[in-house]
């Protein structure tokens, strides 16, 4: 059985005045895939991601996310996806439970669903003892794991992770990736940006953006073969340094 595409972008472009931030990118992401979206600072990753999650209208080109058109149905896209970024994830001055309830409500879950999900999630993450504590008082690693779970509350078909592990300690970073593996294993697509090149190796496929264009897209293994180097870090350096 051929896996369906959860993201389909064709010549997707975004211009700000004279500046072309995203220049006719074409790619697909399959259901259940871990897709790494890499690029140097300023290469256009964030702009591309904003179009895919329905908060920025493309200048031209086409894209569908979870079967929905980015022009016609950005609101539908927002409901069908999960999103987590390093910069903003949860409210520090709400408790763990309050954050779950709040985001559950935003995603339109019923009270009963929120209650069930809340218990499940707190148990899975081992947060029973701190469920009533303010999120701001938790270690960064716990926050990030909680934020990831909260972004999955409404069982989205795809979750977008924008540098989810920046600054996190190495053990927690790995626990985080185990959660990503599990999520993909259960069928949810994971779309992730990172500056850690070892994390690029965890992905099924990786794209690398340079100056608004996708300059490479393949499995980490094939990219390393193609550029005749030993690591994704070297692939990245070769491509992005030109």
């Amino acid at each position, binding site marked *: 059985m051929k896996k369906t595409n959860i993201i389909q972008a064709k010549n997707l472009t975004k211009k700000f005045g004279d500046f072309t931030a995203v220049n006719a990118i074409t790619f697909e992401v399959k259901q259940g895939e871990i897709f790494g979206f890499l690029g140097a600072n300023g290469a256009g990753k964030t702009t591309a991601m904003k179009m895919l999650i329905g908060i920025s209208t493309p200048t031209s080109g086409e894209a569908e996310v979870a079967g929905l058109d980015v022009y016609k149905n950005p609101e539908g896209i927002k409901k069908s996806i999960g999103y987590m970024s390093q910069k903003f994830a949860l409210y520090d001055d709400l408790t763990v439970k309050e954050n779950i309830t709040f985001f559950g409500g935003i995603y339109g879950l019923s009270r009963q669903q929120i209650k069930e999900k809340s218990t499940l999630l707190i148990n899975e993450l081992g947060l029973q003892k701190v469920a009533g504590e303010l999120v701001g008082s938790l270690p960064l690693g716990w926050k990030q794991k909680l934020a990831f779970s909260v972004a999955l509350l409404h069982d989205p078909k795809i979750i977008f992770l924008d540098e989810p592990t920046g600054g*996190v*300690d190495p053990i927690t970073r*790995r626990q985080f990736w185990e959660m990503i593996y599990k999520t993909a294993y259960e069928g949810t697509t994971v779309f992730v940006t990172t*500056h850690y090149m070892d994390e690029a190796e965890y992905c099924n496929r990786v794209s690398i953006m340079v100056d608004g264009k996708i300059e490479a897209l393949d499995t980490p293994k094939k990219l390393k073969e193609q550029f005749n180097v030993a690591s994704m870090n070297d692939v990245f*350096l070769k491509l992005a340094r030109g």
Partner: protein
Amino acid sequence: MSISIQHISKSYEDVTALKDISFEVKEGELFGLIGPDGAGKTTLFRILTTLLFADEGTATVAGYDVVDNYKDIRNHVGYMPGRFSLYQDLTVEENLTFFATIFGTTIEENYDLIKDIYVQIEPFKNRRAGKLSGGMKQKLALSCALIHKPNVLFLDEPTTGVDPVSRKEFWEMLKRLQKKGITMLVSTPYMDEAALCDRIALIQDGAILEIDTPQEIIKHYPKKIYDIKANNMYELILYLNEYQYNHSVYPFGEFIHYTDKRDDFNPDELVQFLKDKGLENITIQPTATTIEDTFMELAR
């Protein structure tokens, strides 16, 4: 000694940020403070740059005591904080002139020291700092931290959130500065940057885990590490965690880094165990230890 830290402790209300930290940085050394967010790196930087008092302990920088001689320290050290702290609405050149003036010098006087770095942003010298890209802000911040020709340079997570290309360029700049005799204490959450330092301190939860050269730290690792791969990485992690003899199981790029509790570990047995679980295309081979492996072992 360029930096000497003796039994420094610091708490914020009920949080202990630093617990009895002691170490020394030699003249001309590039010393790395390696640890995740919340490890206490910034607190230590603030104490050493005289912006914060320690609860206990003493420290000297360039021969000056951080409490008694704080004014001297400020004239002799450069500090590049983690958060971009220049004036966003001044231009590149105005920022640099401002910092030069504060320290009673001029851009011309110390141009040699910053030349390598500053020429890269000089074409944009009339642009406001707030409008610069991340990489350019970083270069401006470094130029401003260097303009008074400090003996010691403190760099707090200069490469966090920066892409691998800019990170590599930044470290090349630091290596060039080192050749000019500047002592540097640099913090980073990226373990791969540890290898670029002369010596490193691994820090977590306010305590030093180990201090040595990167090569020695790797040598101290007590176990033999194996790279394991199979057709399904998620199931592989699950089954390795289930395996009763496992000592540690960590995803590591395209492999899992595995260590065993037993000294007489036979990889074939483990492969058979995984095969019985239904995994295919299993490969297992010994691999080299990295700083990150060591950090995780010490932090367990």
